[in-house]
Every structure is written in C-alpha cells, then in structure tokens.
C-alpha cells in the first residue's frame, strides 16, 4: 500500500466508515424526543394563499405542531447569501412548485405525513413564468415583490441583475468571418444520492443545527441572525455530506427547522425526499448568444457573449454563479476584444444555486461550440483552431485578472494525443475536442489549527466539508509531510463550529489550496516552536537550528520532530498548538470583487459514433486531461476528474427538467429524470493530469474537481457533428433530439418527392 505523504495515494480518511456503514450522515443521527417534520406544498407553481386551516392536521394523533407563517415573526424573516429574498415559509403567495406554505412536526414520520396531507390550504393559482421568454415578456408577472430590492432600477422587472464585462473595441475589430448563434443549456439538478437533511435542537444555551451543508460557518451566521442568538450559542454540526456538488452550499430548510425546534422546545428533523431535493436545488439553465470574429487563419479577433441565465424563484447564490461563470466566458484564449453581457432572470421555478462548474459549463458549451463552427467554416479542425488561440503562460488573457497560470498547450496536446486525434477515423465516427477554464476562489478565509500531541500524534482542525472530494485525506497528507508523522497517527476534525476554527466555505475547488495552505501555515507555526524547543534542549542559539518536512537540523545531527517534541514537552507533557490562516482579500475594483486564486483548466477529447436510426450517441473514447499543478493524492484526483467527466455526460446526453404549462415539474424523481449509470459510460475513458507544480497551493497544487465537467458537452457535440454532419445547439443530446436533427438533415438532402 502507498504511503501517506504528499503525492502518494493513501486510503481515504473516513473510508473505513464508508465501506462498513458506520459513517453517519445527518439522516442517520437520531436525538431523544425528536419530532419529524413534513412540508406542506401545493400542486402548482404560483398561487395566492387564501387561508391555511391546520385543525384537521392537529387532530392527527402524534402531530405536535403545525407551523404556518402566522407562527413566525412579523415581518417574515428572510435569508439568502446574496439577497435576503427567501422567507422561512411562503408568505402571501407561493413562488414555485414545492414552495412550502406550512410544516407539520409529529412524533412519527407517518403522523407528520398524514398531518401534512390534512392541512387544508385554500389557494388561487396565479399566472407565472417558467422560461426566459416568459420572464422577460412586457406583461410578465413579477417573481419578487419590488419592495425586496429597494432602490434597484431593475426591481420592476424579472431581471435580477445584469453583469457587463469587456475589453478592447469590439465594434472596430475586423474579421474575415463572423459566426453568430444561440445555444441552450438545460435545467439540471444535483441529484446527490444523499437527500438534504436537517435537524435542529434547542438547549438551555441556544441551538444546535445538524445539516448536510458545505458551508457550516456561513449557516451558523444565517441562523444566529434569524433567531437572534450570538454565534457562540449557535452550533452547527456538519457531518460529511453524501454528495453536494454545490447544492448544499447555502441554507435551505435549516431556518425553518430552527424556528420549529424553538417553538416546539424539542429537536425536530426534516429529511427531504429525492423529489423534494429536485424542488430545492438545480443549476441555472441558460440561453447564450455568441458572436465571434475570426481571421482566415483561425485567430479570434473579437467575441460578443450575451448570456441569459434562468434562475428560480429565490436567488440563493445563483446570481453570483451568473457573474462568475460568464466573466471568463472566452475561455483560455487570447481574445483581443470582447463584450459580455450576462443577465440573471428570475422565474417561478426551483431555486437554482451553485453546481459544479459554477456557471462556466453553460457559457463554455456555447463558446466552444461557436468556436468549432468557426473552425469548420474556415476549414480548420478543432485542435488547430484551439492551438492558434490558446493563451501562453503569463498572458493577460483576462485583462483584469490573474495571468495564465499554466502551460495550457500541454493539456490540449495531451488530450488530442489520448483520443488519437491524428489517427484515421472509422466510418460514421467523429471526434471533438474542447477546452475550458473555471476561476478558483476570488476571496477566501481559512483558519487551521494543528495540535501536536504529547505522544507525537496529530490533530488537525480544519473546517472544510469532506463531501466526497477527500479533503481530510489531503490535509492529513500535508500534516504528515510537514511533521513527519505517519497517517495512522493523524486525525482530521471537521464539521463542528464549536470545535473547529472558522472556514469561509467549501467551494470553488478551494480547499486544497486555501485550507491546504492554512494547514501548511499552522505546521510552519509548529516548526518555529519546535525549532526553539530543539535549540533549548541542546542549549543552542535557535538560529543554528532549522526545521523542515519532519526533521530538525542541528549543527551535528538531524532529529525527527516527534523526538524534539517529546523531549521538549518533558515530564509535564501537553502539546504544541500551531495556528494557520489564509486570507484572500476582496479587491473592490475588480469586476468580480477579486482575482482568481488559480484557474482550473481542462481539455476533453471525445470520439463518438451515432446510431443513425435511433439517434443514440455512443461514446467510443473519452479523454480528459486537467492541469492540477501538483496532485497531492493522484488517486483522488483521478476519481474526481473521471467523476466530473461522467457527471458532465449527464447534462450532455440525458438530463433536463421538464415543466408543464403550470410550472409543475413533470419528471420529478428518479424514474423520469435520468442520470448516467454504470451502463452509460464511454466504452473507454482515460484521464490524465498535467503537473508542473505551478499552483498557489501546497507543493504547487491548484484546485481541481470541476474542470473535467466543463468541456464534455461541446466535445461530444463536435464529435457528433463530425460523425453525422448535424450541428446541435441545444442540450441534452438525447436520442430524440439527435434523431430530429438527423431527420432535418435527411429532409434537406432529399429532393421533394411528389406522389
């Protein structure tokens, strides 16, 4: 078995519990005297709530509490990471299919369910908007009351915000060819296998919340403000989420259970059904118009991007998704002039939120597809046009941002090689290649504490949520590397805001870089203490002692740090405590409020063939290459890259919400919302990484785990185009959609037959 140092692939910390069933997710935790909560929802999207009658529900044996807006403070408390637009319960009207109007707490799940069925809600269905066109229509009903956005000139429309970026003179740019088209990205949902779960328990001091949440400290702040308790009296316990992918970043129903627990004076638990998670989180859908100018040699001379993203009824973090996703919309290329307009548009649909890729997969689908259309018109292939435009290390390809931080050409070339770009193609096959970048975090704050205990074992306190990416494993490896302690003697503690110091959030592939560096910083703090300890033991001037990677170097010998510690602590024992912190401050003048800590760059190359009869796309080979700087744990890098690639196949080939004309989600749940299974994999998948140790994280690491999702759709569509000659600009490429495109091609080729 591999060792546990940086660059090795030790077994996952927490892996044992994951294969024995001992791992406790929120739903596995039970508290004495707990009540079960069920939500009361309406079978439509937008409705005026006329009255709520709880008397029948309260008559159900076991029902203890029916929470309605009348039981909450006036005015209704609201929350949200960007806009305080989300009420604890729908007030006045529901905004989307699944928006709860009341909630029932009962002694058993059965009683809560029965109680929820018996809450009588009189309501009147109202006109609503579910599409970009509908939301922008002049007579469209407003999703949010303008009073929620005082002073906002857009408050009278469904446009929540408009983001404008640009450089160069687009209108003056010359081009031999201009290609303009629109591209559609569907509504898709996270479908974490663990449905969201929340528990709230009051105690004599305050409140404890258990949540499958990515950002426990942010949640702590939200709850503290809502229930008016000091942070020190709100404890958030965040067991490892069973998959999150961005969908568990921000508060959802934690505020509701908090108010219910305080009212009931007992612990309450709410475990969502999978259907309810479909009504809780999704990715922004988008319609993106791209207009690109090309010189005849393939060089891009300008690009305009107009990206309309459709948000749900409450903004959550999804306007930030729009801004941050669209800003690097030109990808990892030198584009001399560009104009980007991105709009966040509200609708009466499931609230959208962060989702792996954070707005970049949508715009990358559009821009990479548009680039391929240009290449075809110019007689260039997909690899050639990318080689011609890709940014070199140090290029200020995003004028206000971090220069290109990698040798990106290597990634492009390697993906092309892995897919066999230059090999002859079998009949009916096609190849496609796509590049993508995503910005790392623009701000951040991570604290870490590393406790070097008396026996030479180590406790690392790091507030990152380990939601499958394996954060604790990597952190343990960093501590092992720096302190010279084997993994078996290191424990990483996370998920408890009363114990573990502050971490801003687990998102944007930041944790290996920001928290990794904070742990490194804490270890360096220990190094300093150990240096003095070693010097003191030998009666030396500390300047004559140096410490690095597990050892103290004295003038005459090297001593393992564990030995330095044991000798230095002496008979009284105790421990050394190292503290580390990493801050990435906001930059108020930057369009995004901060430059990218790093770029996640991926290149995906696909060989595909299409069943011309049915339209089914078969992926013959899927090569994905990511520039990760340094793989701290190569096995974990591979599983995340391949996992992201397969997740990308979902929105590329099969995933999409289907709403009816009244805004009811018709494919609610696992039967008619399809995600990839073990039988939907490419016939062959290869993943590789580029490592130049040029990232800002520990040992040259960059963040990773989202990149491999960015390029799947454009690479697949390009392969389908080459295989069949049809260009498809709407996702997903379901068999039906591909067949429809093939039919259109057949009709246009065949002369009209008059019979």
């Amino acid at each position, binding site marked *: 078995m591999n060792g546990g140092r940086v660059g090795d692939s030790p077994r996952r910390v927490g892996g044992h519990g994951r294969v024995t069933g001992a791992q406790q997710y929120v739903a596995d935790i039970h508290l004495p005297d707990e009540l079960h909560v069920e939500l009361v929802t309406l079978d439509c999207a937008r409705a005026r709530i006329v009255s709520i009658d709880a008397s029948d529900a309260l008559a159900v044996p076991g029902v203890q509490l029916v929470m309605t807006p009348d039981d909450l403070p006036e005015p209704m408390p609201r929350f949200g990471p960007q806009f305080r637009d989300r009420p604890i319960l729908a007030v006045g009207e529901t905004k989307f299919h699944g928006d709860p109007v009341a909630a029932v707490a009962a002694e058993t799940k059965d009683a809560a*369910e029965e109680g929820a069925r018996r809450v009588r809600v009189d309501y009147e269905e109202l006109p609503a908007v579910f599409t970009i066109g509908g939301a922008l229509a002049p007579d469209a009903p407003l999703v949010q009351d303008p009073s929620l956005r005082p002073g906002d000139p857009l408050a009278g429309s469904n446009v929540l915000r408009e983001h404008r970026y640009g450089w160069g003179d687009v209108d003056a740019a010359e081009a031999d060819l201009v290609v303009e088209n629109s591209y559609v990205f569907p509504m898709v949902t996270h479908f974490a296998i663990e449905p969201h779960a929340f528990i709230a328990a009051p105690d004599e001091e305050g409140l404890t919340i258990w949540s499958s949440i990515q950002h426990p400290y942010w949640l702590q702040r939200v709850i503290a403000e809502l229930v008016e308790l000091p942070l020190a009296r709100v404890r958030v316990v965040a067991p490892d989420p069973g998959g999150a992918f961005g969908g568990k970043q921000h508060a959802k129903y934690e505020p509701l259970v908090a108010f219910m627990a305080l009212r009931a004076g007992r612990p309450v638990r709410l475990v969502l059904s999978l259907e309810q998670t479909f009504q809780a989180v999704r990715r922004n859908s988008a319609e993106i118009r791209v207009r690109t100018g090309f010189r005849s040699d393939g060089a891009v001379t300008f690009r305009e991007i107009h990206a309309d993203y459709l948000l749900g009824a409450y903004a959550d973090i999804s306007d930030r998704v729009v801004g941050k996703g669209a800003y690097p919309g030109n990808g990892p290329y030198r584009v001399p002039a560009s104009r980007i307009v991105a709009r966040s548009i509200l609708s009466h649909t499931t609230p959208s939120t962060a989702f792996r890729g954070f707005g970049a997969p949508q715009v990358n689908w559009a821009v990479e597809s548009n680039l391929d259309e240009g290449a075809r018109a110019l007689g260039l292939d997909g690899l050639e046009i990318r080689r011609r435009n890709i940014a070199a290390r140090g290029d200020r390809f995003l004028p206000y941002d971090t220069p290109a931080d990698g040798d990106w050409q290597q990634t492009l070339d390697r993906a092309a090689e892995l897919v066999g770009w230059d090999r002859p193609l079998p009949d009916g096959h096609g190849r496609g290649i796509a590049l993508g970048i995503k910005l790392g975090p623009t701000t951040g704050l991570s604290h870490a504490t590393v406790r070097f205990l008396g026996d030479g074992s180590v406790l690392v306190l790091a507030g990152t949520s380990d939601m499958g990416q394996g954060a604790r494993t990597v952190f343990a490896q960093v501590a092992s590397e720096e302190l010279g302690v084997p993994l078996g003697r290191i424990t990483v503690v996370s998920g408890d805001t009363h114990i573990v110091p502050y971490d801003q959030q687990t998102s944007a592939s930041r944790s290996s870089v920001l928290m990794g560096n904070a742990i490194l910083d804490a270890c360096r703090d220990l190094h300093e203490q150990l240096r003095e300890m070693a010097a003191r033991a030998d009666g030396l001037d500390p300047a004559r002692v140096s410490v690095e990677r597990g050892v103290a170097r004295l003038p005459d010998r090297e001593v393992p740090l564990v030995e330095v510690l044991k000798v230095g602590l002496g008979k009284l024992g105790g421990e050394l405590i190292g503290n580390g912190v990493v801050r990435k401050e906001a930059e108020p003048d930057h369009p995004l409020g901060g430059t990218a800590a790093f770029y996640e760059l991926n290149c995906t190359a696909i060989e595909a063939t299409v069943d011309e009869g049915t339209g089914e796309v078969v992926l013959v080979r899927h090569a994905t290459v990511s520039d990760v700087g340094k793989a701290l744990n190569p096995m974990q890098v591979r599983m995340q890259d391949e996992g992201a690639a397969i997740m990308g196949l979902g929105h590329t080939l099969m995933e999409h919400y289907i709403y009816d004309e009244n805004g009811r989600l018709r494919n609610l749940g696992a039967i008619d919302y399809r995600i990839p299974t073990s039988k939907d994999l490419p016939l062959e998948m290869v993943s590789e990484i580029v490592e130049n140790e040029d990232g800002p994280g520990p040992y040259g690491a960059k963040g990773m785990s989202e990149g491999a999702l960015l390029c799947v759709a454009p690479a697949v569509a390009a392969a389908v185009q080459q295989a069949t000659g049809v260009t498809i600009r709407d996702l997903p490429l379901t068999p039906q959609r591909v067949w429809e495109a093939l039919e259109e091609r057949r009709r246009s080729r065949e002369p009209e037959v008059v019979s």
Partner: protein
Amino acid sequence: MRSFDYRRPTSLQEAVALLAEHGPAAQVLAGGTDLVIGLRDRTVDPDVVVDLKWIPDLWPGIAERDGWLAISAGTTMSQISADPAVRRHFPALIEAADVVGSVQIRNRATLAGNICNASPAADTAPPLLVFGARVVAVGPDGRRTIPIDEFFVRSRVTTLQRGELVAAVELPVPGEPIGAAYLRLTRRRGTDLASITMCAAVERSGVARLAYGSVGPRPLLFTDESGVLADPSASDGAREAILERMLEPARPSPRSVRASPEYRLAMLRVLARRALAAAIQRLGGGA
C-alpha cells in the same frame, strides 16, 4: 404510505375469497416492485393487501405440461432468465425479462405482476403476445385460461374479473423453430422504462408476428400469414407495406415526458425492421 389490512392467504381459495369480498379495495402483492411505489405515492390506495407468497400453488416454478410451459405467478424475472427451458424455447422472453429494471428489481418482480400491472410499456408483454401465451386465472367460478391478447385493457386494467387472480402464465412449446427478437427504445443504456417495446417472431411456415407497446393504452399484436415478412428475399416495398399496416394503429401519447409522438412513431418503424431482421437471422441460424 397509509396503513392497510395485510393478509396472507395460504391457499388459492382463501385468496380468491378475500379478493371477491373486497373487490377493488383489495390489492394483490406478489413482487411488490410496482405496488409499493403506488402505495407510497397513493396512486394505489387499498384497504386490504393480499400477499400471495404464502400460497404454495403460486410458489416459483417453471414446468412443461401438455405442450405448454407453465410459469407460476410467483416466478421472478431473474428465475425466468435463469431457466433452461425458457432459454431454449423463448429466448426473446428472456431478452425482455433481462431489461426489466435492475438486478434488484428482477429479483423481486414477477412475470404475472408485470402483466397484471398492464403497463403499456411492460417489457414482457410483446414476447408473450408473439409466442401466443395464455393466462391461467383462478376465481370464484374456478379456473379459466385467457389468451394473452385478450388480457390487456389499459394501464392497471385487465380482463380479470372480481375475485380473480393470475395463477400462472403458460406458453405453447413450439413444435417448429421460431426465430424471435425483443428490442426496446430507452433514454439511456442503463435501466429505464421503455419508450417503445417491440418483439418480432417468424416461423418456417412463413407466419410472422409483431407485437409492440408503449404507443397506446395496451400492447398490440399483429400476425402476417402472407409469408412476406418472414422472407428475407422479399422486396423492401412489399415488406414495408405490411409493416405499415401493422404499425398504423399506434397512438403514442402526446403528454409523455419520455418521447414525442413523432419520435415514437419513427422508432416503432426502426425497431420493427431491426427486430424482424434479427428474428429472421435467428430462425436461419438457430435451427
């Protein structure tokens, strides 16, 4: 899920009496893979659930009797798939049984349950139709057999009468070789409900049968005795004309989230041609 009265009859008579007494308020439980979903979302809301698994006569079993292969009501898809006699005589039924849900589903779901649920998209219906299966029903008036083509009405509705249950499904063991193939259309390669089900069978005599589903309230069966469909050397035009007549009655729902009517109708034709070609090839290669 709301509670109900759970009963475990230990004989057919006892089960029939319960079903006769409660009529539509009773639901039969065999594998449960459809029923439990219905109970949970309350599309099925019985007062009484009658579990058939305590009735020895219905326990899993596949046996040949008087030229018929009888599959008892308790037999699961996995058991059908593993049965040598089914594999020898009715491989297209195995092709269908093997794509019902996942392994986990197939270990519980029964053939009898699949046809009693009577989904228009039921995978096993088209092969049962082309093979000329019959349903053995037991009820208050005793035992009767129903040709499978007279069994389906629409989703969740069959020609079973009050008090009747399916005791077995029987398939006639062919004297002459039959070439048959089952195909389906899905949205992904992994487990999925079919948007089209299609089974073709051809005999040496030239008789060809086509059965398909998911394009109307119930699966449909058509027979061609002209010999054209079974003849690999028949002209495309002649074959297409017959296929067109067989496929004309298809009326796919415009409300489905799984596929548009246009796509379904087109795929019906693609799958019919492919299934027929496979059936012909198997007849040639298999005999």
